[in-house]
């Protein structure tokens, strides 16, 4: 397999994640979109690490992405739970109190 097939898989994941973020009304659904986007980027990093001179650096960066995605998911979930405690829903369209 060549590099571009892996990059295309990464592109599909990225686009699916973007669409997921844009269309889902459930807060956790939006979070899943973010995970897809990050994973699409990860596939690109690892593919470049394997096929080009990027080497180990690509794998290191993808490890950082995985770790930071875990941290991001924890914080986002805490926010979602907090929002649910106050509004009894996690519909992101209901989070409009700052509109004034």
């Amino acid at each position, binding site marked *: *397999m*060549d590099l571009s097939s892996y990059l295309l898989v990464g592109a599909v994941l990225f686009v699916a994640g973007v669409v997921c973020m844009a269309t889902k009304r459930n807060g956790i659904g939006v979070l899943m979109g973010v995970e897809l986007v990050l994973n699409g980027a990860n596939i690109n990093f690892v593919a470049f690490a*394997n*096929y080009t001179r990027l080497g180990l650096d690509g794998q290191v960066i993808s490890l950082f992405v995985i770790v930071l995605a875990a941290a991001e998911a924890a914080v986002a979930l805490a926010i979602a739970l907090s929002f649910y405690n106050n509004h009894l829903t996690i519909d992101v369209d209901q989070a409009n109190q700052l509109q004034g």
Partner: protein
Amino acid sequence: MMPLIAANSLAEYVLESILWDFPGNGSVAFTIAALVHVVLILTFFGVAPLVFIWLERKVAGRIQDRLGPTRVGGRFGWLQTLADGVKLIQKEDLCPADADRMLFRMSPYLVFVASFGAFIALPFGNGFVVQNLEVGLFFMLALMSLEVLGVVFAGYSSGSKWALFGGMREAAQVVSYEIPMAICALVPVIATGSLNLVEVGHFQAGGMGNWLIFQNPFTFVAFFVYFTVATASVKRAPFDLAEAESELVAGFHTEYSGIRWSYFFMAEYASMFAVSGIAVFLFLGGWYDGFGIIETLDRFVLDNGCGWLGQYTVNVIGLAIFIAKGTSLVFFQMWVRWTLPRLRIDQVMMTCLKYLLPISCTLFLGATVWPLFLHSMTAGQTDIIRAPMGDRAYSPRPAAVQPLHKSHSAPHPAPAAAIIREGSGKEA
């Protein structure tokens, strides 16, 4: 033939001795090797729960002062599990009306695949491993952590409150217990400096004193902490809150019947063996018997030139020793199950987060500092009684990690796996 039968080496062997120059025969050889290993591991995966469930019933019977199964298959009722399996296959495959049908049907497979996948990296002897990953231990822990997802989905999709409670408890419990389990597994890894279980096994050659459980005080404690945490992470009593029969009917598998129900149990008993196998490799000497018999046989085979058949025989003896050790740990888990009462869910969480987690962090730190401490106390030694770790590795058994091309006189071309990966990956 080399002592290793990892998929790569088997593929190489098949390529050289059976197949000739044939376009794309690298992948054919690799497929043959992969199929051989899949069949072997599936057989083990199917037979081990059969034996363990029978053993569980006998152990439970004896501990409760009864006989357990006695009739099916002759004297000891040893065909009881097979009869049960036939019964389960014949049962109707029920799906509750309130259930999310797709998830309800998928989740037993998720549990099964996660548990089965862990056996890819579990060595059964010196190199008797499907894929000799450098990160083997890490890989096993990762795949076994996926099991919880199937249980949670099973509990959620059943559409029953008992199942939902069971699934939620399982999620909370397993996610918490994964942390001390991984940290305790790292304590012997610090001593050896390798995540590859075969390599960790080699470090424990030469007698029981070299087993990693006796490496330093911290690994000794870590074994018991690991075993407790592993029991909890495969949801065995006294930590089987996910299926607490006295409170939750049957917990997450309340609504399951027939063959789907039995998948959960095959996975549970196979994971019991998997965590015990990890414990055997990390603490209890792997495939070495502890009295130097395997090492002596090894040296005999090497000195007398018994060839690959001799090495293979020694490896089979090592495999038997490993399985015996693993089974005795599984037996110990059963013993605990039928002896101790079940904890409450808050006690389970408290045990993990307030006691086991700090203990395992302390052990981790201690194991890191211990060699430095010894080094400063004893003017440069990292071990008081034994040979230092670096000298111990591989020394009693030079053949164990010899390069794959040792047995060939001519300089060897790249191994089959490399041929496959090169041919398809880099140049394609």
